[in-house]
């Protein structure tokens, strides 16, 4: 029996960059001048670039969001430190986020994937979803989460682009991304 309940969430707001990516926010030299999570790894495995956007109900990309990813290495192992974790702001003009990482391997009977966590102004509780990879069709077909997502599974599948993968995340609309309660 839980003794107390979880602390309630509140939005990260429009100034999340100050706390989480202060160099991006213009706080020169803060924390040694390097934003935590800006450089992932080093992880063994084939390097990829993972890009995407977060689109609102009007189809406009969020230019003030913060995106984190968490992933296994190429051998499907998580941890034991922070090398499989990355954090990037969406670009202030284009809204694009960009991670340089390695393609994860399959872990625990799941198809290769990245956990994606999104916070921003207007998002009251951080949103969790996943990016799977379009060129892993066989593994994807057997993945329990994609199977459970049914005809909306494609919203979690990143498309191959030169040097990596791209996934647009839709907060609303016909193509609304599957967000996970986990």
């Amino acid at each position, binding site marked *: 029996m*839980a*003794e*107390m*309940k*979880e*602390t*309630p*969430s*509140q*939005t*990260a*707001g*429009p*100034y*999340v960059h*100050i*706390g*989480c990516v*202060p160099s991006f*926010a*213009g*706080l020169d030299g*803060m*924390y*040694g001048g390097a934003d935590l999570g800006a450089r992932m790894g080093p992880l063994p495995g084939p390097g990829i670039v993972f890009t995407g956007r977060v689109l*609102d*109900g009007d189809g406009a990309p969020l230019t*003030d969001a913060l995106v984190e990813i*968490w992933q296994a290495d190429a051998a499907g192992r*998580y*941890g*034991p*430190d922070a090398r*499989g*974790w990355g954090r990037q702001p969406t670009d202030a003009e284009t809204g694009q986020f960009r991670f340089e990482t390695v393609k994860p391997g399959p*872990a*625990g009977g799941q198809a290769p994937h990245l*956990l994606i*966590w999104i*916070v*921003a*102004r*207007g*998002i*009251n*509780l*951080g949103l*969790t979803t996943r990016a799977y990879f379009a060129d892993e069709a066989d593994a994807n077909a057997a993945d*329990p*989460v994609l199977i*459970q*997502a049914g005809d909306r599974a494609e919203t979690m599948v990143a498309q191959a682009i030169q040097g990596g993968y791209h996934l647009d995340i839709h*907060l*609303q609309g016909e193509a*609304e991304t*599957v*967000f*996970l*309660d*986990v």
Partner: protein
Amino acid sequence: MTEFAPRDRGWHPPALAPAYRSSILRSPRQAPLRIAQTETERTGPVFGHDLLGPDDADLIVNHARAGQMAQGPRILVHGRLLDEDGRAVPGKLIEIWQANAGGRYRHKRDGYLAPLDPDFGGCGRGITDADGAYAFRTILPGPYPWPNGGNDWRPAHIHFSVFGDGFAQRLITQMYFEGDPHIALCPIVQAIPSDAAIDRLVARLDMTRTVPMDLRAYRFDIVLRGRRATPFENQREGT
């Protein structure tokens, strides 16, 4: 590996809270898909104390010019990181950010007419100790107006970003100050369904940690999701 208790989503603010206008176009309209926890969510990044610089948790000096200090009422914000089962959560990264004493953020998108403080950056970070305890030295942030369609003012607040043992516990929230009348007027705060939940975000003046002739202290404990209760017979079946 820890399996976490389900999150009570009705305790948190809903995705769509129309009085908070920014949520209207940014709220998913479909219910989130409940899935079984996997290793992906049960694990998360681990940060070592070697990450930290000596002044990272001291916002009064960590962006000040040499020999200078931030302007405003000096405070200590401290507390413990716990889980829903009352266990301390040690070794976890906590990051905070806030406006200065005049209610202005050091951010290019904040155009509020209150001036920047040349000696205040507005961010800090620390790692919880063996008892789950954390502490930041900072200044009391000011309330400020914000564009939400009317005459809306944010209560004085500090943003908190917290990591747990697994990504399922990841949390961002805001801490408010005891006695602030703006708490009851703020659409962001009031998006939280119950007064009991809102009360959990209100830090209390803590005279026991106040430093005479120096600073006042506020206490704010943070609770992350607990572990899933596992009946003994299920444990046997699973092993």
